[in-house]
């Protein structure tokens, strides 16, 4: 979709009346009335506190909310803040809301924010997730200052997590992204992030907006784009990742929003990642990880059962995706009792790499490939949770580091699969 198509005439008129800005904050909403009012207030506090002299604007890309979410954003008045907190802005704070479609789409919302940032020539643009109820005014400073004041191009967050949370991030997204692009980006699928005007210019006409990967998981695509282009990347610790009031997506949807865009981006950027052989740290403000270990109830046994039955039932599908050796090892693992169950790092890494290569090659429908990965992830999540049920935060970090090293060690295996496909064999 072209730049002018994603920005409606009405929105263009509003943006032109705003003129150039220094900072833009993007919010994509769909029936988030319960949380969005508080989030907008905190964003305003952060902007007034940390950027009082800058020209700032808040843009809400709405997917057709029926609960009045856009009205809550529009109603954000600068006077309220001045009275409540005694902060003073030297400039007008613009709050714009626009409906991009009647059906919610993360990709379209993000495209609108990126296009608006490019049009307004915003030096720094932050995107805030609409369910981030834990947001603090400091988040605005932590996300935007590295770009606005230190000229970084992309700022990714680091969240405080419970050890049972984010299993897809710790077992696949983080270690695989790190092995591919050589950067220790802890959250390749950020809820909150910020980008520079240069990156907005690159992204606005990018191919990612025209395919499913970009439509479903634009955050992952943007992260991969900044990693592959060798841009200046920064990480900042934010705190607890907010997901209150919003049900987490089911696993199939989660993989479509994260692993699909990652696999797609690999195809787009293989010239960049195939020549990277070393891993470098990313400058980070605050701790690089923070893990809490409170007791939570997790039905792990069901994960193992669904893995075992999935591997058996999906054998004809897995045959077309995995090598016979990997499939045989998975079938052996699926036949194990709970006490003896194991899904080793090596087997997991080989499975994921073979899935990525099959996705690239489109051996079957790409969405079916992602769906077939779900039972395998359940098995891996079971093994991970079982092994680390009592691990300390440091122990867990060591365990994740070990998995990352396995992903890096097996990168030549992925390259072998990849180049074999390029040759057409």
């Amino acid at each position, binding site marked *: 979709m072209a730049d002018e198509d994603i920005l409606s005439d009405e929105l263009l008129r509003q943006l032109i009346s705003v003129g150039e800005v220094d900072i833009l904050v993007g919010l994509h909403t769909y029936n988030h009335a319960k949380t969005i009012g508080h989030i907008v207030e905190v964003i305003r506090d952060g902007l007034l506190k940390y950027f009082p002299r800058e020209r700032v604007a808040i843009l809400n890309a709405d997917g057709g909310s029926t609960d009045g979410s856009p009205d809550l954003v529009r109603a954000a008045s600068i006077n309220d803040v001045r009275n409540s907190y005694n902060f003073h802005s030297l400039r007008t704070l613009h709050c714009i809301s626009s409906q991009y479609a009647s059906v919610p789409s993360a990709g379209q919302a993000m495209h609108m924010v990126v296009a608006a940032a490019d049009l307004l020539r915003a030096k720094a643009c932050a995107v805030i997730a609409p369910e981030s109820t834990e947001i603090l005014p400091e988040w605005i400073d932590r996300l935007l200052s590295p770009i606005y004041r230190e000229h970084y191009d992309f700022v990714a967050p680091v969240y405080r997590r*419970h050890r*049972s*949370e*984010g*299993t*897809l*991030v710790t077992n696949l997204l983080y270690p695989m992204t790190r092995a591919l692009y050589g950067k220790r980006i802890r959250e390749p*699928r950020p809820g909150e992030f910020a980008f520079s005007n240069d990156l907005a210019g690159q992204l606005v006409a990018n191919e990612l907006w025209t395919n499913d990967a970009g439509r479903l998981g634009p955050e992952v695509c943007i992260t991969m784009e900044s990693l592959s282009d060798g841009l200046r990347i920064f990480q900042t610790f934010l705190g607890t990742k907010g*997901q209150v009031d919003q*049900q*987490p*997506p*089911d*696993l*199939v949807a*989660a993989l479509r*929003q*994260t692993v699909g865009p990652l696999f797609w981006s690999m195809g787009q950027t293989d010239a960049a990642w195939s020549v990277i052989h070393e891993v470098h740290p990313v400058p980070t403000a605050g701790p690089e990880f923070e893990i809490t270990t409170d007791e939570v*109830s*997790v*039905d792990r046994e*069901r*994960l193992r059962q*669904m893995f075992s*039955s*999935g591997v058996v*039932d*999906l054998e004809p*599908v897995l045959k*077309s995706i995995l090598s016979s050796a990997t499939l045989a090892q998975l079938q052996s693992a699926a036949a194990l009792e709970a006490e003896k169950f194991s899904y080793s790092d090596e087997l997991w890494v080989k499975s994921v790499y073979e899935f990525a290569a099959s996705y690239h090659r489109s*051996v*079957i*429908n790409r969405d*079916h490939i992602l*769906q*077939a990965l*779900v*039972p395998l*992830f*359940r098995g891996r*999540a079971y093994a991970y*949770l079982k092994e680390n049920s009592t691990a300390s935060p440091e122990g867990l970090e060591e365990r994740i580091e070990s998995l990352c090293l396995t992903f890096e060690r097996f990168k030549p295996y992925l390259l072998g699969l990849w180049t074999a496909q390029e040759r057409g064999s």
Partner: protein
Amino acid sequence: MGDMIANELSQAWNEFARALAHLLPRLLAILIIAVVGWVIAYLLKVALRSLLRLVRFDRLSEKAGAAQLLHTAALPSPSELLCRLVFWLAWLGIILAGVSSLGSASVQQHIADFFLFLPRLFASLLIVFLGMLAASFFARAALLAAVNADLPSPHVLSDAVKVVIVVLSISMAFEELGLAQRTVLIAFTIVFGALMLGLAIAFGLGGRDLARQFLERRFSEDRIRRKNEDHLSPL
């Protein structure tokens, strides 16, 4: 008497020689047409084989599930099958065209009918191929959805989807060919109706407990709790 016999023999021989002289050039022409036709059909086959290899037709067929079906039926690969089909149709077509130019009016009519039948034959083959493609795709989609939703007997659901689509596409192909239209339509209606009725009875009566468990899991608090646990906030 002797002269008469000799005369008749001579006349018969002359007629035979005349008929032979009339027939031989035609036979020769048909033979030449057959040889030239074979060469043309062979070249077509070679060209088509290269084209199909270039567009990776076999891989597409593998994805569609057509290759697997052919393998099960001990038939060659889809591209080889298509090449052979084109070869025989081209050769037969050229020979019949040759015969048509040499033959009688009734033969010409039959040959014209044959050529009129060819587009329908191709359309039918295309319908079956697309049907296989759709059957394979939707059967796999049903299997994956059933496995990830933890539904019981996912293969039954997947196979049912496949059978329905294959039967539908075959009945459409027969209809296109004009063969046993009513029989095929009735057979399809019976198979489809029986399948649906069977499933309804099996689910409603035979699997009453299973149905109850399924509905409980689908709508009860327990399902909500389990679903949340399964999610584990993967992101």
